[in-house]
């Protein structure tokens, strides 16, 4: 009886841990939603941030930060996704489980754990100064691309490895070459998994702030007119609003921008989850 009682006690404790985790999410998101929702208006999405009479950018809307973040995501989509997906395809399909491939994946896994600020340092040293891009949208976009590359590669690997080997064998047995098999069978069947990884990588890029601080985000930048202009970004705007002296005007803007950022990111995450679930129904091996 004593043992049963102990079990009940411990189980309730563990249940409490889980409840605490749920509570954390509810409280944090709750604060952002409750404090941010009142500021949502048409002006918020159609105006650039504007200075008040002390020069703090607490007036206007958040158009240029939103556009800046979307442009960064676009750059990551164009640069990192093809390189990451094709690179992972090579490692899985051509090198398989060889010793070199395993070592290579060790490197990729470790790259995924490199702090974002270190990517920022690489961005400054390599892109901003060595390649002379200056503080610019392209330097930040490429830095973020390097940052999410390992995430895309790992997701692609998992998606490809989920395709049963019999599909590959059947295709090769019918005389298809390796590349034909990859193009017509492996990639289509793993595409929903790859897409899920892509979306998650993009949402990660949208929320990153630290590398932007070093590579060209600017307080008063409007919508960039080229790849080499400075830019604003949503997460940086949030950071800026918490550092401003005029707290009564800045804090509601910080919450509103955080709400918009969360809506973008959570929205993308939900799409990724939905895709994953629908593909599970579509293919049953």
């Amino acid at each position, binding site marked *: 009886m004593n043992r049963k009682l102990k079990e009940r006690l411990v189980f309730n404790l563990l249940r409490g841990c889980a409840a605490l985790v749920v509570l954390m999410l509810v409280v944090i998101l709750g604060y952002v939603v409750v404090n941010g929702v009142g500021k949502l208006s048409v002006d918020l999405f159609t105006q650039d941030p504007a200075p008040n009479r002390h020069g703090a950018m607490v007036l206007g809307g958040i158009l240029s930060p939103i556009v800046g973040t979307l442009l960064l995501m676009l750059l990551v989509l164009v640069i990192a996704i093809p390189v990451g997906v094709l690179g992972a395809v090579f490692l899985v399909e*051509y090198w398989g489980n060889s010793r070199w491939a395993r070592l290579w994946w060790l490197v990729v896994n470790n*790259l995924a754990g490199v*702090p974002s600020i*270190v990517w920022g340092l*690489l961005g400054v040293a390599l892109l901003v100064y060595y390649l002379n891009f200056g503080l610019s949208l392209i330097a930040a976009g490429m830095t973020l691309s390097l940052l999410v590359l*390992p995430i895309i590669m790992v997701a692609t690997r998992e998606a490809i490895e989920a395709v049963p080997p019999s599909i590959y064998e059947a295709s090769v047995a019918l005389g298809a070459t390796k590349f034909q098999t990859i193009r017509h069978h492996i990639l289509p069947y793993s595409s929903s998994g790859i897409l899920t990884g892509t979306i*998650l990588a993009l949402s990660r890029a949208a929320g990153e*702030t*630290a590398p932007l601080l070093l590579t060209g985000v600017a307080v008063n930048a409007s919508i960039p007119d080229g790849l080499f202009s400075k830019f604003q970004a949503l997460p940086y705007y949030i950071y800026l609003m918490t550092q401003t002296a005029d707290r009564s005007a800045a804090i509601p803007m910080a919450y509103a921008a955080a709400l918009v950022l969360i809506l973008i990111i959570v929205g993308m*995450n939900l799409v990724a989850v939905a895709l994953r679930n629908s593909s599970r129904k579509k293919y049953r091996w």
Partner: protein
Amino acid sequence: MAVKLKRSKKAGNAEEGTAKVLLFACALVSLLTLGLVFIFLLGNSLPFFQSNDLWAFLTGKVWQPFSDYPSYGVLPLLMGTILVSLVAALIAIPIGVGCTVYLSEIAHPRVKQVLKPVIEVLAGVPSVVYGLFAALVLSNWIADLFHPLARLNALNGALILSVMMIPILVSVAEEAMNAVPGSLREASLALGATRWETIRRVVIPASLPGIMAAIVLSVGRAVGETMAVIMATGSATQFTTSILDSVRPITAALAIDVPESVAGSMQYYSLFAVGLLLFVITFAINLIADYVLARYKEAYA
């Protein structure tokens, strides 16, 4: 006909070769990236180490790169990182492991369906939003409870970091617990053990390496986290061991000082030396986690 077939095969071979080279080039980017990180961190911190003593850098208690009489002691920054990450780990490990055990062993499938997305969303919330919450809400709660001298302090950073560590810890550790074969649990239950006894004596020992790796990985995340830490800890560059003082961890120092410094100046090089230190620490942490996981996977293969 035969000739035609031969030619198309040749064309196919050429295509095959080009594709392979192209894919290889894409894969190479990842390896190249690691090389570039090494080269540029080392290259830019070399001028600093040539004119400054490595020992003074590692043990100096004053970090004032922009002063007229600059001092490059990294200890205040290192201490800030250690203080914040250590306390965060002490909070996150029990809650995270408890949540993992509940999720993997106890929770009803329907509860799981809610809990797992919650943890995924928690992992997806950008660090700047956590920082916002810490700076505007959590700091007030701490001020009411402990009356610290600094409104933004190390405890604030540690608490918000612990929230950020939990989703990583849970997702990696849960995978390890799921990998424990069901037959082990059934054998234990059949011998008359209760479910809790089975968890404690069978499931947890069997998945311990995975749990350890999860803990190590989440600590790595805490050490490398930047935005939440800047916004939560107040960024005072003092050497302190008090959890209620304001601190500036390594990541915060990099994010704040690099944009201020002029490229090619000694401040700039000193910051790359700090970056190199951070990179070495996190890389070592990740390698340890990889090693533990690899050993553990072999055990169950």
